[in-house]
């Protein structure tokens, strides 16, 4: 469960830039939420705070009841390792490593034994919908959609309580984007994963169950998504 209480973030290198202003919301376990807003509205900044990559200038952020907003670098690293999975717009895979090694990487930092790492990485890849024939390919031999599913598997492998995806379809065409969105929907419905999807496109946001709309660092709307889009299986393969 996620709880933000009056979160503000101000960058003050040279000039003072308030990016997030008094943001408060709650996200329950198993929700699929889209955070939507135009470019520069503070979505990524918010995601960095939710993902324990950064701390707010003021306000409190609770993740599963733990106050993350005042933690040290190493404590934040532990929170990321144990509770959070990231999916980025530009995949961020190690290009010269195999798919399996990419997916197992978070487990290396978690101190898991190699055999268990491989087992869990394979399971995560199956959940993310990547075909088994690709497991030993180098990640730079894959298509964009496949790369993003490897990245989703990497986000899943630690069994996190929260998956954060920042513009995950931004580098993909509509069709492969749909596949990725379908993967998130499946993970949410079948695995009950909590997913926060960040996007500037309404079309993408409408795949979630709830949309938080932000503009200039303030929430202007937070409501259930009434016309949820579904990506159908037949559509994809």
């Amino acid at each position: 469960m996620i709880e933000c209480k009056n979160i503000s973030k101000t960058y003050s290198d040279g000039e003072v830039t308030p990016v997030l202003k008094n943001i408060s919301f709650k996200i329950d376990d198993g929700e699929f939420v889209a955070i939507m807003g135009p470019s520069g509205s503070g979505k990524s900044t918010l995601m960095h705070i939710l993902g324990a990559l950064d701390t707010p200038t003021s306000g409190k952020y609770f993740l599963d009841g733990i106050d993350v907003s005042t933690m040290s670098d190493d404590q934040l690293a532990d929170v990321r390792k144990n509770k959070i999975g990231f999916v980025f717009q530009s995949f961020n895979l190690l290009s010269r490593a195999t798919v399996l090694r990419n997916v197992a990487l978070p487990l290396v930092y978690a101190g898991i034994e190699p055999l268990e790492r491989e087992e869990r990485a394979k399971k995560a890849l199956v959940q993310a919908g990547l075909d088994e024939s690709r497991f030993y390919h180098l990640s730079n031999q894959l298509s964009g959609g496949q790369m993003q599913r490897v990245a989703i598997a990497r986000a899943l492998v630690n069994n996190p309580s929260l998956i954060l995806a920042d513009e995950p379809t931004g580098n993909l065409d509509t069709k492969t984007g749909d596949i990725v969105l379908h993967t998130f929907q499946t993970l949410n419905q079948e695995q009950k994963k909590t997913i926060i999807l960040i996007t500037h496109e309404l079309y993408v946001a409408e795949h979630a169950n709830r949309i938080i709309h932000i503009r200039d660092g303030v929430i202007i709307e937070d409501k259930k998504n009434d016309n949820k889009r579904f990506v159908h299986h037949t559509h994809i393969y």
Partner: protein
Amino acid sequence: MKFTDTLQETYSALLSNKVRSGLTVLGIVIGIGSVIAMISIGQGAQNSIESNIQALGSNLIIVMPGAQRGVGIQVSSGRGSATTLTNEDATAIEQGVGGVQAVAPDLSSRYQITAKGTNTNTSVDGVTPSYSQVRNITVETGDFISDQNVKSVSRVAVIGPTVRDDLFGEGIDNDSVIGQTIKINKILFTIIGVTKAKGGSGPSSQDDMIFVPLSSAQKLLVGSERLSTISIQAIDQGSMADVQTQVTDLLLQRHNISDPTKADFSIMNQSDIVSSASSITDTLKILLGSIAGISLIVGGIGIMNMMLTTVTERTREIGLRKAIGAKNKDISTQFLTEAIVLTFVGGFLGVLFGWLASLLITKFSSIATQVSSSSILLAFGVSALIGIVFGYYPARRAAGLNPIEALRYE
């Protein structure tokens, strides 16, 4: 993060850019290799000089005619014009100076030697029996010059192994040489002994010498009662200084000289020779070592340069690793390990390369070299240290990257 995982990450990171890793390692190989080779040359030079000096004998004091001369002048070639040392001086030292184990006067000169059609030119040394003890000469076959030989002005000779080979051909056995005659300056001498090889080369080698009775050298060959040196063996290391002063005083008195600076003889002791020679070789070692050390530093800067480039190139990767839970320490350990592995591989290859170089130097030149285990240990220590020193800053830089900035980096 486990150590085996760190090594695994290091392995794949270094192999992903083989050429660059290879060139960086090469810098360390050259640095460590030249340190090993240079130190081996210095060590070899020191060893051969020290063994030459030790071969002279132990607790040795040498008196030579003529004014004070520096170290490095051959102690065995006493062909100087001064004829100030006599048999009586030697006897007086033996009888009047305390703390003396033995006194060995000698007269040496170079002559043409012939034997059954072959000939050679070498140093002929007129000696007394004590010379073998004082100057550490061992007879391998036969006998050394005896008191009886000296008393009766015998025409007998003890030859060194080099002379034996020059006159009778290599491979001849000592027994068949004993009893043969040779002509020294056209006078017939009978060989009664062959000395044991001592090693060493050059004109001061004691293997390339002929010993005859002192009286025979003075009366039959040189025709003068003078001596080229008086070698004195003190009873122990501690009494050398005392013996040296006593000998000086005695000789000044016998030669009627009141001002010690005008002495017509000079005295050297073995520790003077050893210490001045080793100060020369120490300087040589430092010089060679520092030349090599500079190339090692250049290699280290190469490591640092590569690591900094790597950190910049892999900024996004660092950001990602942090996002998935790597701590600052995990990142710095990884980059430091990369640097240390590079220098360690370089150090290992460098030791092999330096060893090979020193073997080749010994084989194809007259310079003796010696690779010591301490210089190998030193090289490994230094290479690991270079990895740590020059890898530390890049590793710190990598660890200090802000994950958000790093992920955004293009």
